[in-house]
């Protein structure tokens, strides 16, 4: 009884913080309206999507530090196709998804070949940011007006960004917790050697989850193109850190093998509330607070694990 309570400590911490922030925000009239949250979701959908896609990767004991760079790289490619080559919207957006998936495939092949995920994706993080910068430089690239209309489309009154997060949550939750692939992710993260002898197709699984992250990063890149009428190669420099923070705060064990997609969802909700509540604080203070929060989660998580043993 106490053991399971201790294990749940980081989750409870996140939940308490979530409730506290919500009470703080509801002091004002704006957050009582649904439209307020739809607008905020449009700002913070990218880290949410990436956190969901990263959860299976972290469950295998891996990490992907390149998600922010891949997102920006995909957005720059789409931007160039639209603005410089005059591609129609549909094919250009599709190309963004393909570029993201290919970048993820590179990560997956590196990790499957035995390169440490931290090292492999640190390298590709610089690689894809560098590619984006060499494609469009440090200046903003203005896009044709038409791209923004799709972003304003609200099926059933709900913005596309919210749909994307909900659908991704559904897919990741189903795959991780209700398929054989999900069970193998946990097995691989718990003990890679045992998983191998048990016949888990580790390499194919790794290539798959990293490619999926790349695809979602491509989707985020497409979202950025639709949202803003200009793309920048030096944008979104803390995207991967925010996304990883959501996963960790959600109680997914960073060394793999344990965690729940709904935990990540809670982490996303908490971090998003934190960012909304701190919108008028300087970005450096915001990063500092996020760092302190993660440290707190890491320490309580570690303490809980020791006690539980």
């Amino acid at each position, binding site marked *: 009884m106490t053991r399971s309570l201790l294990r749940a400590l980081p989750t409870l911490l996140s939940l308490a913080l979530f409730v506290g922030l919500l009470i703080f925000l509801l002091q004002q009239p*704006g957050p009582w309206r649904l439209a307020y949250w739809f607008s905020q979701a449009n*700002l913070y959908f990218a880290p949410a999507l990436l956190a969901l896609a990263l959860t299976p990767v972290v469950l295998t004991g891996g990490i992907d530090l390149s998600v922010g760079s891949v997102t920006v790289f995909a957005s720059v490619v789409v931007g160039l196709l639209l603005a410089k080559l005059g591609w129609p919207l549909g094919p250009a957006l599709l190309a963004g998804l393909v570029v993201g998936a290919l970048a993820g495939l590179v990560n997956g092949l590196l990790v499957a070949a035995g390169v440490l995920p931290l090292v492999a994706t640190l390298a590709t993080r610089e690689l894809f940011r560098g590619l984006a910068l060499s494609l469009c430089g440090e200046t903003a690239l203005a896009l044709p007006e038409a791209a923004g209309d799709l972003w304003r489309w609200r099926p059933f009154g709900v913005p596309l960004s919210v749909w994307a997060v909900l659908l991704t949550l559904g897919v990741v939750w189903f795959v991780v917790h209700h398929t054989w692939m999900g069970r193998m992710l946990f097995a691989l993260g718990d003990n890679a050697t045992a998983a191998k002898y048990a016949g888990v197709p580790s390499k194919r699984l790794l290539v798959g989850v990293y490619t999926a992250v790349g695809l979602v990063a491509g989707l985020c890149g497409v979202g950025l193109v639709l949202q803003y009428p200009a793309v920048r190669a030096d944008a979104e420099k803390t995207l991967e850190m925010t996304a990883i923070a959501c996963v960790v705060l959600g109680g997914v064990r960073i060394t793999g093998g344990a965690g729940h997609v709904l935990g990540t969802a809670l982490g996303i909700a908490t971090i998003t509330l934190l960012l909304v509540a701190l919108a*008028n604080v300087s*970005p450096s203070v915001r990063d500092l607070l996020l760092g302190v929060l993660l440290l707190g989660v890491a320490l309580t998580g570690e303490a809980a694990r020791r006690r539980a043993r």
Partner: protein
Amino acid sequence: MSLRLSRRRFLALAAVAPLVGCSGTPTGSGKLRVGFMPKLTGIPYFNACKKGAEEAAGELGLPLVYNGPTKADSGEQIKLLTGWIAGGEIDVLCLACNDPDTLVPTLKDARAAGITVVTYDADSQPAARDWFVNMATYDGVANLMLDELAKQMGQEGELAILTSSVQAPNQSEWAKRIKARAKERYPKLTILPETEHGEDRDLGIRKANELIADRPMLKGIVGLTSVAVPAAAEAVRQKGKKGQIHVGGVSTPRDMRDYVKDDTVASFVLWNPIDLGYLTVHVGVLTRQGKMPKDGTLTAGRLKGINVGGGEVLLGEPVLFTKENVDKFDF
């Protein structure tokens, strides 16, 4: 489910619509809330704008909401604006844009929510706002800056441009005009490509020092932001190049007082930022009340004979600040 919801929402809208119509009509009611946002907070120039905005809001008896990012970043502005717009916190928005393009969707959301949008100091794409309050024409400022420096430099040598970033709206327009006018009027003057300092004082000093060290033919630096000019002056002072390298550009008396008094800088250019903030709030409220003329001249509180036309409101001609008048201004 969704159908029922939308029908209910439609009924709610139908019930509320006449009320909204009432409050939106030009009655001049004292309940308009004015949001005023600078490019960044905490620098004398925008503090002066804020002072003028507060003066105007006080005269009109309206509450003023003031907030802005701590660094000049359009993404940070979008986050704050989203809170204001989605939270229904303001009726009139006055904004100095860090980027003409990126803010467009947010400003369109604001106008869709019934908010009057007036940009000041730095414009957005014209389609995204109701008015731009221009402090002085781009030509007026660029010509005065260049002519003053060219005179000091004896119309020859290299002139460096220290700017915030190449795509900053005002700065890019000024730089373009400085280059064009130099080519036409001062053939012996070489304009170097822009150097960026991101409105960061320390970075500005470092970049100016590098320019002085790397370019033996350098005879002048023109700073295009209120931070760039004192940074360049500081570098010239540190290197002991007073009188050899001339510094000018756009800055504020408070930032420049020291350097003008010890003759590191002979003159710099500006308009009155207090008047700019003051005029911006008046234009926003007049627009909201339906009293704004499409073109012609305008009286806004204590400011008279303001030119209006082409979606822009013009504060006036730029002012040259020197040792003689720099003490008369407290911003």
